[in-house]
């Protein structure tokens, strides 16, 4: 692909572990079989985002998509692997380089109410960071913030109001203006339109696309909503229990998904154009990330699983131009299992 990626995750892992408490340590000293519980939220993931791209990161709850987003936005350190910003390792940057790289990646969250300080006025919420980082002087602050507010569709005369005086969609616009205020290159959107009504959601998505053109932004767009991701992304990455299972362009991925999990996700997406009277859900629950299944994490729910899937982790391999999936079926000599109709289970 083209040149050095803007940001690249190389074998990035993020583990969360709970330390044993005092009583458990004593119990262990007496021979109880206790060990620290570790969740592999992100498990050796490789992901490159090129400048100007919109990459969608999809998956169900607990798949690690938000954690990966946070690691890439630089607000959470990786426990393994490295994140490279324009080819340089993020963790190794120092001084002004570090500050610049951190400012250049900003995040927009799902619930603006929990990310906007309720005691601050909008002008201070948006204006604090550029002021602190010397991007704007105090006398020029109001004009600077008013200009940003205008661009994201907020009435600049409301700058002295508090977050609770705005509707959900407007609050999301405040969050967007805050992210833009430090002139970022990459924006990580974590479920940024999930809590909005469909019409407001469309307004915000349009705003994201307009801002992309206007500021030449790159997006990592995290969402559980395949419809949204399909619409706005240049590339889609599907995660399941901490690992990437498939990646491809929306056209390829949605019309010809290779991984059984992607297929299940796409098939079960309710849609108004495709009225089905019957459901053929994939079996089973999403397993706990505390005890992920061996081998391919999807094998207990997969209708095509065979012996190898229980033992060996499938690696991401190219299945077509720009498309890759992590599934042992890719190595099967007969394509029957892949192209055949998806057997149904309930």
């Amino acid at each position, binding site marked *: 692909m083209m040149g050095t990626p803007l940001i690249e995750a190389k074998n990035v892992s993020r583990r969360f572990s709970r330390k044993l408490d005092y009583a458990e340590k004593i119990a262990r000293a007496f021979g109880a079989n206790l060990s620290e519980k570790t969740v592999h939220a992100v498990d050796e993931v490789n992901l490159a985002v090129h400048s100007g791209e919109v990459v969608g990161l999809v998956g*169900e*709850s607990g798949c690690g998509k938000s954690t990966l987003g946070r690691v890439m936005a630089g607000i959470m350190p990786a426990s393994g692997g490295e994140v490279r910003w324009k080819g340089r390792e993020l963790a190794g940057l120092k001084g002004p380089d570090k500050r610049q790289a951190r400012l250049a990646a900003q995040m927009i969250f799902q619930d603006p109410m929990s990310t906007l300080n309720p005691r601050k006025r909008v002008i201070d919420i948006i204006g604090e960071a550029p002021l602190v980082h010397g991007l704007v002087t105090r006398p020029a602050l109001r004009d600077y913030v008013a200009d940003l507010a205008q661009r994201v569709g907020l009435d600049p005369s409301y700058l002295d109001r508090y977050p609770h005086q705005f*509707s*959900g*969609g407007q609050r999301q616009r405040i969050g967007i203006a805050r992210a833009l205020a430090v002139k970022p290159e990459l924006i990580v959107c974590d479920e940024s339109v999930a809590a909005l*009504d*469909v*019409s*407001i*959601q*469309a*307004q915000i*998505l*349009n705003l994201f*696309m307009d801002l992309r053109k206007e500021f030449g932004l790159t997006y990592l767009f995290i969402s*559980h909503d*395949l*419809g*949204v991701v*399909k*619409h*706005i992304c240049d590339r889609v990455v599907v995660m399941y229990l901490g690992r990437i299972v498939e990646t491809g362009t*929306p*056209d390829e991925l949605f019309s010809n998904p290779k991984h059984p999990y992607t297929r*299940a*996700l796409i098939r*079960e*997406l*309710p*849609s*108004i*154009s495709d*009225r*089905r*009277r*019957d*459901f*053929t*859900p*994939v079996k089973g*629950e*999403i397993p706990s990330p505390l005890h992920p299944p061996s081998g391919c994490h999807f094998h207990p729910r997969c209708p095509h699983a065979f012996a190898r899937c229980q033992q060996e982790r499938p690696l991401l391999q190219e299945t077509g131009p720009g498309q890759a999936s992590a599934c042992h079926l890719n190595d099967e000599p007969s394509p029957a299992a892949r192209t055949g109709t998806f057997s149904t289970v*309930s």
Partner: protein
Amino acid sequence: MTQPVLEVTNLSTHFPTRRGVIKAVDEVSFTVGQREIVGLVGESGSGKSITGFSVLGLVDPPGRVVSGSIRFQGEELTQLPQKAMRAIRGKRIAMIFQDPMMTLNPVLSIGTQMVEAVLAHDRVSRTEARNRARDALGMVGIPSPEERLDAYPHQFSGGMRQRVAIAIALLHRPDLIIADEPTTALDVTIQSQILYEIKRLAQEFSMALVWISHDLGVVAALADRVLVMYAGRIVEAGPVEDVLSQPAHPYTLGLMQAIPSAVPRGEPLRPIPGMAPSPLARPSGCSFRDRCQRATEICSAEPRLDILADREWRCFHPNEGRAA
């Protein structure tokens, strides 16, 4: 047609506030036939949940049903004393909420809660009640129901908790279930499983279902008929296929066009302009007229309900029969 299970006529539920009266539900009429699945669609604040709560007599004061009639199997519910309403609620009409933690008590085991729910309406032995609870859990697809009766709500995943809530709703084989966004908080694959179970169970027990949702996709997949609410009113109603293929009301059309799949990939989406009006400051006449591209002067008058065969709408400029 046989007698409908639920017949709501001119229902209004108002909330008096210091700044004026909020007409959360404003002259709403609809029926739910036997074994029928009705989808009630609208954005936040449209009054769809309050409509459901009103039917069950669960509107919190100061809000109250100020006028209209709710007839359930021919019986008027609005005038019913609390005690009589309690005998119906949970027995003949059940409700499922978005957040099952709202239904479930976190400090009691699932079994204790379900036995309590059985004994609230039926005089049976505890053993018998426990057996019924176990069977209900099995019915909604919870593995090893006998052991799971002793588990507590936090030991279940979100999808499983919602199954428990559905099992509780099914305990008395109600004739009507009102489900308020029951799959909104769930993942796609789990949502699909729940929709599948609900559909199967509704058929098996010949239950009628009112499915409240903001997601037209879910309603399209599940419901026989759809009601579209905007600003406290039902603005369009009809069979799902007809409404979604040829929406009469511009709001219904707007909702459908705002969905990302409605436009080619990468093109700007088509949101409905503006925002839903504050419930305290709704425009006179048609409350959608400020956001409507078809609006003309006539829209400042109250649009009446037009009925054509099995479809109805409240609009002066419906898209009669023409595709969008």
